[in-house]
């Protein structure tokens, strides 16, 4: 069987695909790659379908040894990728002969690198997806040294002709937000959301936690539990908002002041602690 061995996982490497939407009514988060376009690009570079599973590597440090001939691509923020110690570049397909070792360095900006391998990581899916959901513990365990990941059969032809210059995530950016469903729980929701927020180190795949001037409520208490979408900006009693990412709980009782436009979520997934975010609310 085609496979690849994990030599070192770095701070956290998780198998991810495009997630398992459709089970929220059973309490199952959607999960999936936080920077979906980066995983899709990596898959395309190695000739995989967009839905193939790859590895989401937090702050790099992932090192793999090929146990068969395969093609690999690393996307996300710009990062040093080496093949047996020799730099080979990110955002390009790299051929690995059996026994060769590929290592992802630490990105200087951004948070999450994506690694795709020809044939895709073929661990057993759960509820239609191979994604690791850190909230529920559904999906394959975080990668550990010595893990041998089975690979599927290569499907397509790696595309190398369209090398793309990777984007460096910004240190400050604007995030479009649609107000609601519970913006009426807050004093001046649009103008207070539009102030400057800073990403904190408490953030993870469940949500991005922000610090700043606390949002002021005009109502007390909690809501009866209601459904939550990815990108929802929930405001707990502290007044400090958090933006729910792919592994978010499916229901909750704190008011959601607004929802981040889906196109802005990949950038938030790459936002390091200290990154400044300015919401641009629209009614």
């Amino acid at each position, binding site marked *: 069987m085609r496979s690849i061995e994990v030599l070192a996982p770095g701070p956290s490497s998780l198998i991810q695909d495009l997630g398992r939407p459709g089970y*929220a009514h059973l*309490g199952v988060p959607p999960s999936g790659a936080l920077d979906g376009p980066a995983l899709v690009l990596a898959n395309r570079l190695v000739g995989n379908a967009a839905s193939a599973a790859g590895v989401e590597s937090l702050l790099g440090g992932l090192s793999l040894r090929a146990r068969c001939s395969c093609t690999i691509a690393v996307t996300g923020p710009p990062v040093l990728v080496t093949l047996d110690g020799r730099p080979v570049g990110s955002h390009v397909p790299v051929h690995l002969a059996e026994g060769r070792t590929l290592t992802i360095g630490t990105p200087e900006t951004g948070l999450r690198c994506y690694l795709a391998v020809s044939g895709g990581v073929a661990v057993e899916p759960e509820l239609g997806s191979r994604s690791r959901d850190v909230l529920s513990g*559904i999906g394959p365990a975080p990668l550990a040294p010595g893990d041998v990941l089975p690979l599927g059969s290569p499907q397509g032809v790696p595309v190398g002709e369209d090398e793309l210059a990777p984007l460096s995530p910004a240190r400050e950016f604007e995030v479009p937000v649609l107000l609601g469903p519970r913006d009426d729980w807050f004093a001046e929701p649009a103008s207070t959301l539009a102030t400057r927020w800073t990403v904190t180190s408490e953030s993870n795949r469940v949500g991005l936690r922000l610090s700043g001037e606390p949002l002021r409520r005009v109502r007390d208490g909690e809501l*009866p539990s*209601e*459904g939550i*979408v990815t990108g929802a900006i929930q405001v707990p009693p502290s007044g400090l908002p958090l933006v729910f990412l792919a592994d978010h709980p499916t229901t909750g009782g704190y008011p959601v002041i607004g929802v981040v*436009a889906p196109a802005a979520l990949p950038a938030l997934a790459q936002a390091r602690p200290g990154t400044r975010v300015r919401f641009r609310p629209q009614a």
Partner: protein
Amino acid sequence: MRWLPCGADAVLIECASIEETSAVRATVTAADLPDVLEVVPGARTVLVVTRPGARVLARVRDLVEGADLDHPPSAEPCLVTLDVHYDGDDLDLVARTAGRSVDEVVELHTGAEYTVAFTGFAPGFAYLTGLPEPLRQPRLVTPRTRVPAGSVGLGGEFTGVYPRSSPGGWRLLGHTTAVLFDTRAERPALLSPGDRVRFRRAG
């Protein structure tokens, strides 16, 4: 009924009662619209999430506003019976609060038929409505850091079963050995919204 915006691709339908919530959920689920990704009931709301850019929210609204919510479509009725050992750590507290004996509490809990209103907290954690009035009791002042899997408890207007070990603040009546959630099972969640549930005293 209020239609609350929830991003560009979803709507949160706020209902007047838990019955209306159930009818709206059943209506949208039964229609099985191709671009509807999720239909997530809450205690008084139904969240409908659609494929990005599919522009089907207007169809969802037409569907719900045109439906006879007093007679919602009923899927194949599913009645789940759970065998419970009534040996929970809070049984005496629940009995005291209700002003009943422990046996009467068990009779009340096993005598009612419940409906899965919504899920959350953990995969397969179902919030069941239909709790007899004396058993509608507050959560514990200090939640437990660990509640064992299979624990049967109550909190507010709901009763339910912890699918796995987790922190929890519900008053515990007992435990069941039933498997509430298994991703490899044909029905991953034993209890899903709309299902009917009864508890039976085990042993």
